[in-house]
């Protein structure tokens, strides 16, 4: 149960909204739930629905609508490469395919060690610094701009090192 | 007068040596034309699955109201045709049918085809109603008879996928 696991955070989030507008708290609560396991589990959706006095289906709809919420497990780090037009003009497609090639996976897949999931996403507002990607993990969201395939692999290697040490 | 009689006799005499226009039916059968519209057949795909998906459009198109179709749902365990729907009952009343071929035109899967057979006879009105078993063509070649057990996800579509123009 979310409220039992993170009583303080849940209370703080709920306190921000008027008691008759509890459903407003759904977004931060979903973030909280996602931090836990990298995606929003069905059980978490049920918890949040109960906390916000909404139906589970409504909570799931929100998870589905926003591209930063996930309802399926993936790697520890999500590498999200923008492939919209301005990025594509600066070689984002090639960057993405090379990255996948180097990691030995296809777009949307996770590396066998469960560390990295590569995804193609829509505009991340980094058009002038393309090719670029953002990473999403329990540490939050980080932008990596003006990337080459080498620099991207360096970033991923750094994660691998970090993982080994841990 | 004699002249007329002679001409008549001549005509008779001449026709005695001509090839007869009649044929010895049923021992001899005259071949039908390419677009002849005879008794209906329900076709199968090469794998034996029925082309008919029980959509009832033939029945809707039929001006004589001779066709009766009832549909049911396919499963992968018991599959008659590709997709979700098949004809659980398919009957044509041959007494009502006027062999116009509208059913052929209406069929989205080219399942019903008016064949070459014109030898329809019955001694009873009930016999004139041809059920699905009579109308379905026999399984050819490698095909299996229906119902078949199929792999899940193999035959999900009733109607073949549309393809882009090739030119």
């Amino acid at each position: 149960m979310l409220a039992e696991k993170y009583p303080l955070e849940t209370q703080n989030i709920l306190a921000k909204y008027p008691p008759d507008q509890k459903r407003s708290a759904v977004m931060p609560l979903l973030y909280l739930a996602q931090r836990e396991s990298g995606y929003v589990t069905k059980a978490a959706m049920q918890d949040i629905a109960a906390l916000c006095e909404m139906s589970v289906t409504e909570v799931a709809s929100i998870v589905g609508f926003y591209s930063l919420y996930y309802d399926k497990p993936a790697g520890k780090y999500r590498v999200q490469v923008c492939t919209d037009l301005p990025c594509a003009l600066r070689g984002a497609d090639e960057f993405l395919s090379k990255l996948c090639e180097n990691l030995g996976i296809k777009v949307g897949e996770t590396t066998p060690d469960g560390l990295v999931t590569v995804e193609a996403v829509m505009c991340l507002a980094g058009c002038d610094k393309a090719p670029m990607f953002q990473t999403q993990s329990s540490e939050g969201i980080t932008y990596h701009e003006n990337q080459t395939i080498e620099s991207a692999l360096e970033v991923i290697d750094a994660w691998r090192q970090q993982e080994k040490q841990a | 007068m004699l002249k007329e009689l002679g001409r008549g006799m001549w005509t008779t005499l001449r026709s005695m040596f001509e090839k007869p226009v009649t044929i010895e039916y049923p021992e001899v059968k005259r071949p039908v034309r390419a677009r002849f519209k005879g008794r209906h057949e329900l076709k199968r795909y090469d794998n034996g699955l029925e082309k008919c998906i029980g959509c009832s459009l033939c029945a809707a198109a039929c001006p004589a109201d001779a066709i009766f179709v009832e549909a049911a749902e396919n499963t992968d365990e018991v599959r008659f045709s590709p997709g979700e729907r098949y004809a659980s009952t398919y009957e044509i009343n041959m007494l009502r049918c006027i062999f116009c071929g509208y059913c052929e035109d209406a069929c989205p899967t080219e399942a019903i085809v008016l064949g070459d057979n014109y030898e329809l006879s019955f001694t009873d009105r009930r016999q004139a109603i041809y059920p699905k078993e009579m109308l379905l063509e026999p399984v050819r070649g490698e095909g299996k008879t229906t119902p078949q057990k199929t792999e899940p996800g193999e035959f999900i579509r009733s109607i073949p996928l549309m393809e882009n123009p090739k030119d």
Partner: protein
Amino acid sequence: MTKLVSLTIDGKQVTVPEGTLFVDAAKRVGIDIPVFCYHPKMEPVGMCRMCLVDVGRPMIDRATGQPVMDENGAPKIQFGAKLDTACTTPVSEGMVVIGASDKVKAARKDIVEFILTSHPLDCPVCDKGGECPLQNLTMAYGPGETRFLYDDKLHLAKQVPLGELIYLDRERCIQCGRCVRFQDEIVDDPVIGFFNRGRSLEIVTHSDPGFDSVFSGNTTDICPVGALTTADFRFGARPWELKSTSSICSQCPVGCNITFNVRREAASGGKTVIKRVMPRQNETVNEIWICDKGRFGYHYTESDDRLTTPLIRKNGELTPASWDEALGLVASRFSAAGEGLLTLGSGRLSNEDLFNLRQLTEGVKGKAALYTHMAGGDLTAQVGVAPGTDFGEMGKGTAILVAASDLYEEAPIWFLRIKQAAERGATLIVANARPTKLEAYASHVIRYRYGAEAETIAAMTVDRGPTTVAGHPSSVADASKAFAEAENAVILFGSDGLGLEGSQALSAACANLLVATRHVGRANNGLVGVWSRANDQGAWDMGLRPLTVDRRPELQSAKAIYVVAADPFGDDPGLLATFNLQPATFLVVQDLFLTETARRADVVLPAQAFTEREGAYTSGERRVQRFYPAAPARPDTWPDFAITAQIAQKMGSILEGRVPAAVFTQIAATVAAYAGLSYRKLAETNDQWPSVGSGVRRKGLYFSGTAYENKQGVGIHLPLSPTPLPPVNMQSFHLQGEGLLAVPVTCLYDRGQTVYPSALLHQRIGEVWVALHPADAERLGVVANSRVSLTLGGAEFDATARLDESVPQGVALIPRSMGIPINGPEAVEIRAGERVVL
């Protein structure tokens, strides 16, 4: 009074209230603007873009603020650079709307092309094919061919069950959101929703069971494509092959207008069978909706367990007999019984049946009684809602009191209409011993303890001041003030936790409250009974009265009992003792099934289901409505009124037994409230908005869905009884007993004979249950979802325990018609069982 504005649509001058949307304004003058996502019963969203029109507004001179005139002196019209959606743009004065220009046509063509990019075009196998707005609008406005690549079509799952009642075909969905909006806006059961975005958008449900709403079937009617279909009609037939017959739903007292679609079928051995039930438009009763019980619960009429021949007890066994023999025997025994004849009829019968029953019984001076657990039908005839009443009109200024009824379970369409009235501003007061779903929309909630129903309502008659009356929560005072001050007020009373005595007291209290606050004799004012059967009100009107305690002694002497469409022994085995039934008592049962009562009968007579015959029901609002024969009758069965008439004939009196219309004429001549009515009058219709899809004109298929047009009668609201209201003596009623009290509640899906034969509903019906407060459960050592055994009325039963904090402490809720016979509140003993059901 709303301001009217004039505008021109496609050259036609239209005057409509300000704020009307273009689509509606155009539809009202017969101009069709194609729509997919817009629905006249819901808020517009402008998602599909199909309704694009060219909108011109009068040009205004900025300097003077006056309209600019052209050389002819007409106001100059300025058209926008782009097209507007007709479904989201309200009208304004002097507007010019063009829905047929080349620009508009080109735009619509493109929209259809877009919508079809990933549509599978599998119309031949689609259940909607033939009554599909997408098909029709594509034919009318579509391009004929697409410029998109077929390879880019999305291929999605074609068979996604959203629960066991509704199937989703993801490919066919055009993302109009009508279903999601219906569940959210109209029903407020948001159990289906959108998931993902753009082309990947899909409809999902996360409720348990899937699509957990009793209105789910309506989404298949308003779906503009074949994305949502019912499990019941899946591949059942093509819509054009179906014949339609108007009828009235017989599942609850709302009296929803329905249409039966029938077809002759080889799968049923060449019989003509009902293929589906569709709503039939009646804006004052059910609008264009019906609940799932009405839609899927009709299968009992086709059950193989139906009685097909008369049975006579010979040597202790019920053996088939001829009608002549059976009727002769019944007639001779009834004649012999004379005053000792007791007739028990139920609200499942039509007015004609009940009328004949009473005539037959009174012909020999016997006693006719209504089989019910709920009283008050005499009061609803006096202080009921007057003609002209329409829940759809109620809003600000109206108070609605719902007492002892869980409308969502008992009469879902009333729930819907009252919820909507509350949202329009009506003051909703919900009084119940436990929380119900309707409370979410209530302005006042009154919580009493079981047994204090009448007392609480009586307190409302007194409590007008702001002060609290001892023993009652302050909410009573507030609510009674709001109720008394409302311009119009309606009370719906039910039998949640009540038996005959309790509901009698409650109805009297409600009637007194209405009289005291002068909310009687006018439209949108009065008392409505939430009966358990479709025609309970009709039975009261026909003069049948329930077997109250004070009537029982005179009935114990019954020499012959004639039970029609009721199962008293199945519902209450204890009745045997109450009746003091002698072995010599001659018991005749006339029913569809071999019920518990029928098993004990001396003669069993097979009747016809309401789908096989004609008749008229009187709804809870006292609207008399006709139903027509839909399916051919089972051979060798008769309608109830005809059987009764034939018995009467053999007894030497003449009753009309051939034509139900003639029986109804007799009713009109005998029963004051029905004076002047005839079958012809009941078949009158009126113009209704919005136009709907199926039926004769099919003008509204794309507009409001596949509900049927009402062509066979909207029914007639009965006038109130002219007899002056006698002062009602409210007999006080108190529950006795200590320990756990069992109270009966009604749930929508039960194991009754008119529901259970629908196998499709079994999952929703579930096991026999009893609901307890967790504290009581703990005290008794009962775990959630475990089997318990209970002793009720001297008999033992098994049930699954449901623990629910909303159940008042000291009370066990027992659903009616679920296998545990319970007629009213009584003491119960519950023991924990051993087996745990997961």
